[in-house]
């Protein structure tokens, strides 16, 4: 192949496909070879096979005459909690291991209609509950930068390794952004409801939103443009038209007022490395002429705790359909209720069982007001703090995670509620605000990260700041994490 898709942006791939500079058949072969190799190294997929990729190539060949496909031939990875009617959707759960939805998520249809090529379904934590490892029925995903470390998710690993140009995954308390920061890729969690949630198997409906992973801002902008189309008749999506993101990137706003919460350095498990990197970035932003203000957000630091209070109760309820009657795993039981217990105890990981038990506990009358209801009120408080802060500033800036990709040998977190990885990310889920994780690359070290949060519906500001930083940092951009190019 003259052109390697892995080195190209989505726009370039689509152009090369249209100009027949990339042959679909070759693209399919290469993708399958590299996927096989990446799977062996990283365990990033739950479902991918040659037949499906061949089917995708055939579908794309039929799309070729259609010049309006902005994502023609663009390789896409999809987290396995987003439904597809031609591949199992397991949520990385034993209970769901054979589940074949009779429908496809709207986001998948939207991307496919625009020519995207779905490589396969990627590994995640069971029902996307955090990304600290230990609950996937299909084992953990290795980080392409360091195989001894966790990638957080298969979707992020697929983008980091150059296999997928774009990936979709969901974000409940920050999972999308956390995995992106571990793997050194861009992540955009849009405003709650900006992108359809139809076909997402969500664990916490009021927090969870599908987001986009990619390697450059322009790719995120193109994908967002395709996805941010109002869905009439669906009260969970926003009924507003999206602005033209790509053209906004051409003339970026450069006078951003950026706020940094004073509690940014109070995270538990905050690594010195992350702390130093962040301070260095603040100086860089200053050099770029951006106005940086420190602000006091009294409850920003509680966001992760509050999101956990809410998430556990919603998870308890959302997963109550997992009963072995209409779908899923089933154990025998002497009677109905015993069947439920046997089925769910064996179908769920230990971590998930404990989490929904926790949700069951905090929603009993005894704890309802002091935990769940109080959590919902604190959620209002945190949203208001963000709202007033972002009424005076364009963006809020923090690190994405307090630590870099955790190693399997010494995991930073895992069993605790809340997951310390969510310290900076959860506020955007509570408020429904859009947020973006921007990767930072260093010689000989794991990638670092910055997180920007914008007011509701202002994804454009996130894409613009990312575009600006991308230009500044272009010389630092390393080769791919994993050498798949020779495969």
């Amino acid at each position, binding site marked *: 192949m003259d052109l390697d898709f892995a080195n190209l942006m989505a726009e370039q791939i689509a152009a090369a496909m249209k100009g027949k500079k990339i042959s679909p058949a070759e693209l399919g072969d290469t993708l399958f070879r590299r996927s096989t190799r990446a799977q062996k190294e990283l365990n990033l997929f739950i479902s991918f096979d040659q037949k499906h990729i061949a089917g995708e190539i055939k579908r794309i060949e039929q799309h070729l005459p259609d010049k309006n496909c902005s994502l023609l031939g663009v390789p896409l990875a999809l987290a396995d909690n987003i439904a597809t009617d031609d591949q199992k959707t397991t949520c990385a759960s034993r209970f769901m291991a054979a589940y074949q939805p*009779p*429908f496809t998520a709207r986001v998948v249809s939207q991307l496919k209609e625009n020519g995207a090529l779905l490589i396969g379904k990627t590994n995640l934590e069971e029902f996307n509950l955090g990304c600290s490892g230990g609950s996937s029925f299909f084992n953990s995903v290795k980080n392409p930068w360091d195989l001894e470390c966790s990638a957080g998710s298969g979707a992020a690993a697929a983008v980091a390794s150059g296999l997928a140009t774009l990936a979709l995954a969901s974000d409940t308390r920050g999972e999308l952004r956390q995995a992106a920061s571990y793997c050194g890729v861009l992540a955009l969690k849009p405003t709650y409801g900006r992108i359809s949630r139809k076909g997402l198997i969500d664990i916490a409906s009021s927090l969870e939103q599908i987001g986009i992973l990619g390697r450059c801002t322009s790719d995120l902008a193109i994908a967002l443009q395709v996805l941010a189309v109002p869905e009439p008749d*669906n*009260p*969970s999506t926003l009924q507003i038209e999206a602005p033209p993101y790509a053209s906004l990137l051409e003339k970026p706003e450069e006078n951003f007022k950026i706020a940094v919460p004073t509690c940014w350095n109070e995270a538990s498990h905050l690594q010195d490395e992350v702390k130093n990197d962040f301070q260095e970035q603040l100086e860089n932003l200053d050099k770029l002429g951006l106005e940086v203000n420190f602000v006091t957000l009294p409850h920003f630091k509680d966001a992760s705790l509050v999101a956990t209070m809410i998430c556990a109760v919603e998870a*308890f*309820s959302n997963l*109550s359909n997992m009963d072995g009657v209409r779908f899923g795993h089933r154990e025998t039981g002497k009677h*109905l209720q015993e069947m439920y217990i046997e089925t769910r105890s064996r179908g769920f990981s230990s971590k998930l069982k404990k989490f929904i038990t926790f949700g069951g506990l905090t*929603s009993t009358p005894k704890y309802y007001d002091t935990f769940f209801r109080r959590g919902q009120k604190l959620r209002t408080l945190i949203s208001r703090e963000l709202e007033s802060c972002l009424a005076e500033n364009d963006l809020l800036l923090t690190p994405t995670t307090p630590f870099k990709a955790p190693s399997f040998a010494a995991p930073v977190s895992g069993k605790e509620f809340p997951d310390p990885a969510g310290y900076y990310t959860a506020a955007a889920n509570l408020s429904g605000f859009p947020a973006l994780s921007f990767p930072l690359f260093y010689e000989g070290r794991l990638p670092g990260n910055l997180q920007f949060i914008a007011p509701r519906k202002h994804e454009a500001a996130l894409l613009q700041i990312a575009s600006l930083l991308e230009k500044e940092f272009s010389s630092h951009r390393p080769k791919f994490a994993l050498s798949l190019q020779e495969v």
Partner: protein
Amino acid sequence: MSTFEAVIGLEVHVELLTATKLFCGCSTAFGATPNTQVCPFCLGLPGGGTPVLNKRAVEYALKTALALNCQISPEITFDRKNYFYADLPKGYQTTQHFQPLGKKGYLTINIKEETKRIGIHQVHIEEDAGKMVHMGDILSTPFSRVDFNRASVPLVEIVSEPDMHTPEEARLFLQKLRNTLLYIGVSDCKMEEGSLRCDANISLRPLGSKGLGVKTELKNMNSFRAVYRGIEHEIERQTRILQEGGEVTPQTRHWDEETGVTKAMRDKLVAESYRYFPDPTLPPLKISEEWQMEIRSSIPELPDSRYTRFIQDYNLPSYDADVLTASRELGDYYERALDTYREPKNLSNWIMSELLGLLNTHNMDIVDCKVKPHDLGNLLKLIDEGTISGRIAKTVFEEMFATGKKPEAIIKKKGLTQISDEGTLLKIVEEILADNPGSVEDYHSGKDRALGFLVGQVMKKTKGQANPQMVNELLREKLKK
């Protein structure tokens, strides 16, 4: 022995007459092949989509709440009631717990010549569960079959205040409620198909006391009779327990129609709480003043005001007004017939005795009646005009009931017109007198009964078509001579 007073509250679930389910576009038609009216959402499949509220369901529920004189919440929310059961696809039922649609309403019932007001605690919208079919008896069945066609069909739940004290009051309340719902057309209220279901909360307290005793919840009453008998039996059962110095156990009991007793249902794994919380997938819904006005204006005249109007405008006895307003269709029928025939009480008599009598004999409803109101009015006019006798009219009506033909056509075809021509009648009277000298003698010797016999003979001869009044007069005149 102490005397107790029963305290009864009803919880009534009513399926709304929408074409589709509460949150998805699946059909609600009754009787389809199991699991053919389901989609990923109402089947509770993972990723099966988000709920989208059916506008008509909300409108019907609003109509119900307004017809039951409720205060309407300006904003309503939907909440999840979490529990595990085989007929519950999502593991929770979406209902309204925190901000129900209507509160503090009432209905009136007429009992022992008095009007009594029964409070409505609340009216709310919720989704139905699926249906379970057991292999034989529920106790011995090795497994059950589940059909989710009914899952997520829209319901309104009407919760009464515990304002009733006898099975009769409960029955009257339920009847009045059903009648009202049929008037406003939001449900077909068929207890046998489960589109109207009634549970009762029953407790006893010493007569004169204001407190509340321990209550039991009574389920599985599938007819008005069952509601009456079930409550009656449960009151007797609780009375026995209390009189023997025992304590009533708070529990759910099932009415067993065959054995005529209530039985406790044991279910050890009932959740300690339903963990109600707001459904995160259903944002609150505003119920604007304009919308309320619009729905209010679509509510037809309700039984109570129609009842009063029938008494005032048509001078009907309260009994007649009660019978004629017992269903919207019957009241409509009466008033349409009244357009043709302006004698309210005569018409009422005919409808109550002849029409309802035949409907009852044939086990039919007024909506199935072939006799058009206009034709019934005309029939009664023909009696008043003397064209036919009241007796002939009954025969004509039977044929109208069977065929739906117009009275004039039946009378003409069968030659049933009354004979009122004096010459013709005189000839027949003379013949009868000549044929029955014995009776003539009896009459003259003071036996008045003989006149009746002679009238009968004339009627017999004319196949009932003779004008009875004229026959009477002619006979008396002839016998004087």
